[in-house]
C-alpha cells in the first residue's frame, strides 16, 4: 500500500512534471507551435495525466511492475528533456 501511495502522489507528480515539460518542448521545438501555446497545452494535459496515473497506481495488480514502468518512462522523458534543453535554450 505504501508503495502505491508513493507512486500515486509524489512519484506521479514528478513523472507528470517531466512529461509536461517534455511535451512543452516537443510542441514548441519539434512541432513548431508557438511557445506560449505549447506551454499551456502541456499544462492543460498534465491534469488529465496526473489523475489517470493516480488511479492506475491503485488499479494495477503488481506494484513492482508499476514502479518499473514509472522509472523507465521517467528516465526516457528525463533524457529527452535534457537533450532538448541542451540543444536549444529557453526564452
Amino acid at each position, binding site marked *: 500500500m505504501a508503495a502505491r501511495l508513493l507512486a500515486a502522489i509524489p512519484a506521479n507528480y514528478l513523472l507528470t512534471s517531466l512529461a509536461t515539460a517534455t511535451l512543452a518542448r516537443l510542441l514548441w521545438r519539434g512541432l513548431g507551435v508557438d*511557445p506560449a501555446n505549447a506551454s*499551456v497545452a502541456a499544462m492543460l494535459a498534465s491534469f488529465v495525466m496526473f*489523475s489517470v496515473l493516480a*488511479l492506475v497506481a491503485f488499479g494495477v495488480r503488481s506494484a513492482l511492475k508499476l514502479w518499473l514502468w514509472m522509472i523507465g518512462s521517467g528516465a526516457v522523458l528525463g533524457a529527452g528533456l535534457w537533450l532538448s534543453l541542451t540543444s536549444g535554450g529557453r526564452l
Partner: protein
Amino acid sequence: MKDSLRQSMALFHTWSGLLLGWLLFAMFATGTAAYFQDEITRWMQPEVTGSADPEASAQGAVRYLNKVAPDAISWYITLPNGRSATTQVYWQPGDGTRGKRGETSAVLDQAGRAITVRETSGGFFLYRFHFDLHYMPVLWARYLVGIAAMFMLTAILSGIVTHKKIFADFFMLRFGKGQRSWLDAHNVTAVIALPFHLMITFTGLVTLASMYMPWGIAANYASPSVFQEQVFGREPAAERSGRAQPLVDLAPLMRAASAGWGGKQVGYISVTNPGDATARVLFTRSPGAAIAARGETAAFAGATGKDLAAHTASGAALATESVMIGLHTGRFAQWGLRWLYFLSGIGGTVMVGSGLVLWTVKRRARLPDPARPHFGFRLVERLNIAAIPGLATGIAVYFLANRLLPADLAQRPDREIDSLFLAWLAVGLWGMVRPAGRAWTETLALAGACFAAVPVVNALTTSRGFAASITNGDWLFIAFDLVMIALAACFLHAAGKVAQHRAKKAAAPLRRTSRKAVSQ
C-alpha cells in the same frame, strides 16, 4: 480482474474522498454562493439602490481618483455591470509603498462618491474564501485548495469506475432506508450533475494551473515574466515624464473600445501614470459579455486619447484555457444559466456532504460496540458536524451580522467575517461536547433557525423586507429571502429526520425485548 479493479477503485474513492472531503465541502458551498456574489453584495448593501451607467461610473471614478490619488503609479477600476451597481477602485500609491487594504481601495457610486455606510466585503468574501480560504497565507491556501481539487478529480473518476449501474441509478432515490438512502442521495447528486462536477473540478484546477504545474512554462521560458508579457501584454510601466497633463474624457474611448469588440462592453479600466503626459489607459472587455475569461483589451494614450496598438494573445491552447476559466467562473451566464450553475453547485455540495455522512453510516453498523465507537470514527463524525451544519450556520450568521452590527463600526467588513468564523467555531465545539446524535439534531436545527432569521432580521432592520420587495417588484431581495427560507426548511427538515431516526432507534431494542417476553 474486473471486480478487483472495482474494489480497489472503491477503496481509493472512500479514502481520497474522506481525506479532503471537509475542505471540498466548504469549497463547494462557498463557490456555489459565489455564483451570486454580485447579488449577495447588493443584498449586503441595502442602502445602494438602482443601477449604474458604466460610462458615468468611469467618469465618476476618475474624478474620485484625481482627488485621492493623483500621483499614483496606477489606477484599477472595476465598472458596474448589469448585476452590480457600484464601482470598485484600487490604486498603487506613488511612493511605491503597498498601502493597507482599505487605504488604497474604495467602493464608489455612479457619481464617484465613496460609499462608507455599512461597509462590507459582501459576496466577494465568499468568492475569495472559495480558493484563498482565510486566516492563512494565500499561497498556502491555494496549494491546499489545488490538492483538494486534484483529490476531487480522482475521487470522481474512481467513483465512476466504482459505480456499477450508473444509468439505472440515475432515477433511483429511496427515502427512509438508512444507509441505502444516503448512498442513493450521494449517487443521484453525483450522477445527475456528473458533467458539471467533472467540468467544474477540471476547470477549477486550470484557473490556478500555472501555480500547480509550472513546468510546462518553465520548460520554454527561463523566466515566467517573459511568458506573462507574451500572453497578457503587460508592458513595464513607462517612467513618469513629470509633465503634467490631465487625462482625457474616458467615455468616448470606452465607446471606441466597445465598437472594436463588436459592441461588447468595457468591464475593467487600468490607468498607468495618471495625470502625466505618459499616461496609458487599458480597457478590458466585461467578463459578462463572452465566455472566455481573458477578455479582449484596447489601449489608448491617456493624454491624447490616441489609439495604441493593443496586444492580443491568440492560439488554440490559450483560447481553450481562457474558455475553461470562463466556464468555471460563470461570469458570462445570464439568469437561467446562472441558476442552473447555482443548483448544480448545490448538487455538488450535497454530493460531498452525503459522501461524508455515508462514510460514518456505513461503518456504524460494523462497529464492534456501536455505543462506544473508536477514536477515528468519532473524529470523522464530529468533523462532519463541524463542516456541514457548522459552515451553514456560519454563512447565515455572516448575513445576520451584516444587518445587526452597527453601520459605522470600525473595520466592519472584518468584523462580519469574524462573525462567520466565530459561529462556525462555536458549532464545531458544540459538536465536540454533545453526544453525536443529539449534536446533529441541535446543530442542524440551529443552522435552519439562523437561515430562517435572515429574512426576519432583514425586514426589521431595513426598509427592504419581503412585503416591501413584493410591492416594489425587487426580485433580487425576493429571491434572496426565498433562498434563505428554502435553506432553513431543508436544515429544519433534516434536523427533524435525525430526531425521528434517533427516537426510532431508541424504541427498537425495547420492542425486541417485549416481543421476546410475549413469545416466552
